[in-house]
């Protein structure tokens, strides 16, 4: 404290010399301290009430709740223990992770390529850029139904196109072997533009100086890309990946719209399994246990990824 006294006094005297109106306008009065809470209140009230269902969900997942029985008994972690030793659960884990990881990898790779292509001065880039967002703007469920119509074995145009390549009657979502490929196709079609758009924004926001410096130094294109462009793009790619990873870990519309998780349990990820268990089999306790685990996984991954994003962002700026 004592070392700071000088600075403090200077500050103060300066302060008092200023005209009255330049005195900081926001001294924290009692009124000001409560103002933010008052302003936030209504929005908090409207959305914050869902914290109650959130805790109800966790509670239900600790009970033996079934639609067919009126009484609800607390059973502790029994549901979780039973689930963790069931085949269906580990199948769900596999489907959820497989879906999310493959989807995000392809979307990122393709999205970055598209962003680079659209960032050129080529004629097609100028013409096509406004259409980039279209797949993303259609409801994922509607998109899925569109693809289903194109995949119809009787009149679907995709089978017709494939027949030129010697492939007849591709089974799409009706076979366990091709079902995952089918939903991933729809997922990639829908969400690649999301990554492309964010990365394109990043490319447009790149500072000019490092590139001019590299050109003066005679750096190769590859060197510039690897050592300047990509590192500067990392925060953009990261934020896009965070969004896509979280959304694909809880994908419901595309899988449910395509086959309701079928054939059999082929595509039952956490969300679809949770829905089916609750509303088809009337076992919300089990269904919610799946969803709680789903939430927990998303929570861990997103916390970790946001930390990483903050790190790369602060490194660049």
């Amino acid at each position: 404290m004592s070392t700071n006294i000088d600075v403090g006094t200077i500050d103060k005297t300066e302060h008092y010399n200023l005209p009255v109106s330049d005195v900081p306008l926001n001294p924290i009065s009692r009124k000001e301290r409560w103002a933010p809470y008052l302003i936030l209140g209504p929005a908090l009230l409207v959305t914050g009430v869902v914290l109650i269902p959130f805790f109800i969900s966790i509670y239900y997942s600790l009970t033996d709740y079934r639609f067919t029985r009126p009484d609800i008994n607390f059973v502790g972690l029994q549901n979780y223990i039973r689930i963790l030793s069931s085949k269906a659960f580990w199948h769900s884990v596999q489907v959820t992770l497989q879906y999310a990881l493959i989807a995000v990898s392809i979307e990122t790779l393709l999205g970055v390529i598209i962003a680079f292509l659209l960032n050129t001065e080529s004629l097609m880039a100028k013409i096509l850029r406004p259409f980039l967002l279209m797949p993303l703007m259609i409801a994922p469920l509607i998109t899925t139904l569109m693809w289903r119509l194109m995949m119809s074995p009787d009149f679907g145009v995709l089978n017709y196109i494939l027949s030129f390549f010697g492939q007849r009657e591709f089974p799409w979502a009706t076979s366990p072997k091709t079902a995952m490929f089918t939903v991933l196709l729809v997922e990639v079609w829908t969400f690649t533009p999301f990554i492309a758009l964010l990365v394109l924004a990043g490319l447009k926001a790149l500072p000019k100086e490092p590139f001019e410096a590299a050109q003066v130094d005679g750096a190769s294109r590859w060197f510039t890309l690897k050592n300047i462009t990509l590192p500067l793009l990392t925060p953009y790619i990261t934020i896009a990946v965070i969004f896509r990873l979280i959304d694909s870990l809880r994908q419901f519309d595309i899988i449910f719209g395509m086959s309701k998780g079928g054939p059999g349990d082929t595509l039952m990820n956490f969300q679809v399994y949770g829905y089916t268990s609750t509303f088809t089999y009337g076992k919300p306790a089990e269904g919610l246990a799946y969803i709680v685990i789903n939430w927990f996984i998303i929570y861990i991954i997103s916390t970790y990824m946001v930390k990483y994003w903050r790190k790369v962002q602060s490194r660049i700026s």
Partner: protein
Amino acid sequence: MEQIEIKQRKNWLSIIGVNLALIVIFAFFLFPILWMVGMSFKTIDDILAWPPKFFFTPTLENYKAIIFSQMEVRGVGSIQIDFMASFLNTLIISAGAVLVSVILGVPAAYALSRFKFKARENIGFMFLSFRFGPELLVIIPIYFIFQRIGLIDTYPGLIWVYQLITMPMVIWIMRSYIEDVPVDFEDACVVDGYPRWKAVFRVLTPIIRPGIAASALLAFIYAWNNFIFALVLGSSNTSTITLSAMKFISAEALRYGIMSAGIVISFLPILVFSIFAQRYFVRGLSMGAIKR
């Protein structure tokens, strides 16, 4: 000289390559949309034809059937089509949800960006987490609660629950817009003797108006496109477009023409909007994380 020639040839090649690659990629992304639009102008015979018809005589029958809510089926007579009702339902729910979110969310965004208070980041994060949580985690209990208090399958019930989609978007996008505006503007106005809230209205509101429009539009599109909330909490009274479309595809193939017309009507306005609003959406789609 020779070197320059090689370089130019290489340039030509790369220009052709880039254009070609873009054509192939966008053919993949735009074909399903164009095919769907084409399908909506086909008769049911043309839709079910094999091989699929790329050229056909367009018909407006499907759109007529939707607008007049009736379809003529050979040998059966006319069938009631309820697509129009689901349009209206989706419009009421989405617009209602966005309206509530803008009225409550913009001031909330202001509080989160202008005031320093203890719980600020926690509250901000709470709003954000609604965007990322698995929806079923909250809507399954809400389903039980709504059943008990009679909010299931009602507009107010759905508008309320849709706040989980629209509110986080409005708050986080607007927070990033407001943080971009220097606080000095408002302060100057306060110095002139205006109370703070008047300063906000006079100075800040005009600057952030485009931001409000962009965030409202994006929130509207997300509400419009939602499926899972209506699937669990809606039914015959509040059936949304997505819910109706799901029912249509499970019905017999005779209705596919009408279904495709309904789908096209549901996404065409949004696609047109997106062409013009694309550059405003980067900030919105990243919830304010990317500013441009």
